[in-house]
């Protein structure tokens, strides 16, 4: 579009609306390393005591931050891996393979994609107790992966749909099996999709809060979201410096991924995800 000479009023309105967010971001960083005096907003001297949770227990009975971080990493990465694996095969089947009941599977996928999974959490809570997977990392990994699956299959199906048929036709003509065609010809074409899905499901697992809160409430299965929430809930003095330092630590992977893949992420999220 041609740049309009008078855009300052637009910038002004946008800036006014964006101010609260910018203030939150700026002070999120500042307060984690230098708390201002009460009643003032000017940061004082650099003070790293807010980060003490890294080298000592902030209070008794709380698991060490490193174990919690390890749990979070296992939870997020295993979930991402599972979702990507199952979506890669299921997406291909739905996109390219002729099989009985395909219309029903596709219809089911769209319904599941829109269906609000969080309403099922009470039943899932009881199912996990029956299965003996309650309060285990494995339990929340399986649940999270299953709940992310419709989204993953949807994304992967979209990527498969863009692969030209000619590539597969050529493979089949040359006498390769459908499996070999998929493995050697089609899969390399959807590598960007695989990467995107891995990243998005990792982020989703890393940020997940309600599932671990309900399905893995014990301290040995705590993840960073529930850890941070517990610290905030238990602290009567509202020590925002400490909370924000934990928040900074918690969001490092998110920020890094955001900075590196910002453009791709916006494209994917624009591709029609859950709100």
């Amino acid at each position: 579009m041609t740049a309009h000479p008078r855009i300052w009023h637009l910038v002004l309105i946008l800036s006014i609306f964006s101010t609260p967010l910018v203030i939150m971001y700026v002070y999120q960083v500042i307060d984690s390393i230098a708390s201002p005096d009460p009643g003032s907003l000017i940061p004082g001297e650099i003070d790293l005591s807010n980060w003490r949770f890294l080298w000592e227990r902030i209070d008794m009975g709380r698991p060490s931050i490193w174990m919690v971080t390890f749990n979070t990493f296992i939870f997020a990465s295993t979930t991402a891996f599972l979702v990507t694996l199952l979506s890669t095969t299921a997406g291909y089947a739905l996109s390219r393979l002729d099989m009985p009941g395909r219309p029903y599977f596709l219809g089911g996928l769209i319904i599941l994609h829109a269906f609000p999974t969080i309403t099922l959490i009470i039943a899932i809570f009881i199912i996990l107790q029956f299965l003996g997977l309650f309060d285990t990392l494995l339990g929340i990994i399986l649940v999270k992966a299953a709940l992310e699956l419709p989204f993953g299959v949807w994304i992967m199906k979209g990527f498969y749909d863009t692969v030209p048929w000619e590539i597969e036709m050529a493979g089949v003509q040359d006498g390769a099996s459908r499996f070999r065609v998929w493995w050697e010809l089609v899969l390399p074409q959807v590598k960007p999709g695989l990467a995107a899905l891995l990243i998005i499901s990792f982020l989703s697992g890393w940020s997940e809060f309600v599932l671990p809160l309900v399905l893995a409430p014990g301290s040995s299965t705590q993840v960073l979201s529930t850890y941070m929430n517990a610290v905030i809930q238990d602290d009567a003095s509202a020590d925002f410096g400490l909370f924000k330092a934990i928040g900074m630590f918690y969001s490092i992977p998110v920020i890094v991924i955001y900075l590196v893949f910002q453009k791709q992420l916006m494209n994917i999220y624009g591709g029609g995800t859950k709100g």
Partner: protein
Amino acid sequence: MTSRMLGIGFLSPAIISVCIFFLLPVLLTVVFAFTNMSTSTGIMGGDYRINTEQLRSLPDLDVSEATVERLETAGFQITEAGLTALADQFSKDTAEELREDYLGETFESRRDLERVLKDLDEPIRRTRDRKEAADLFAVTLIGERFGTEEEFRAALGTTGIDAVDHDVLTEFAYTGWTWTTDNFSLLMELPSTLRYAANTAFYVVATLTFNILFGLFLAISTFYLPGRLANTFRAIWFLPRILPPVLYVLMWNWFTWDNGFIATVMGWFGVPAKNWMMHTSTHAWTAIVLINGFVGASLGMILFSSAIKAIPTSMLYASEVDGANRWQQVRYIILPQMRWPILFMTSYQTLSLLTSFEYILLATDGGPGRSTEVWALAAFHTALNNYGGNLQYGFGAAYALVLVFIGIALSVAYLRFFNFKELLSKPRIEQ
């Protein structure tokens, strides 16, 4: 390998996990909604037992007084357990003598047993002690655990309780969950039901309106800005969507709480510090709509931005040549192209707002009072997290069932919004 076999093989892991974590939970939500499952009943079934506290509520069940008495003491029997207690509390010799002469014997009334205790070679001398000692041998159902209904009924029979009362007592004594429709009649009766429904309606409508209007504004305004500036604003507004909810809400807490940003700034003007999020229900609702709205607007911005980019630039140039001003361009060219994305956004967000409670849980937890408690949060509080400690899974499932029904109905309706025929185009290799 045929494509049919491959298809089934490729699909089955996904289908299995969908069955376990979608279909089964949907069915079980229906099932649980018709039970009184809770922490106290457990989920695995239960046993049969009446304890001392429950005894008092028995007359309300029209159980005869004789039965209550019989439950408490159904005679006396000299047992090893009783003898051990006797040896501990009174004398070993008395217990030993009683064991030799009377082990296994039963007495109809306390007086008979007391007489025996008095006539022993090593008697219990004081009347009060004898009474206490006799009580050690009382046969009673109270506090005893029975694994199955048969065992319990047999025990009722042997203690000589009137057969008329057996059914009532069996039902009363069962500690596990039972089938019931009480959850739904309770939902109909409780005034809070209407309250939560109204809260939910307000929350969905207000947040959705904010999301769409503000998302449109962000998308259109950043479209007219030069690249770098536009990207800066997009980056600012994309972050809420991608930050972990716990951290995002923490930033809001800092912004609004009584030692946070607003309170500090207002303090400079002499306004006493207060919690700007939780002060009144209006404050709480404003905070909730903004917290959710910023995230939703973030999604709206991304969706609408990519839709605007898809508009052919020639159309926009043509309109400029024709002398349309900026507003006319938005009104007559951009907005009409937004119809489909807005419809999509509305349908998806309606469903996700109806059922999501994460941000509300983190921000106000339904407070102050119950003023921001929405339906989904009520289900969560009832079944999974409440201060009373007795988690009512059955009642919570009844709450959730309403949402599950709405969810299924709406997502089936959305099938129509998608171009389903196009999705169904046959795979070409088989043709």
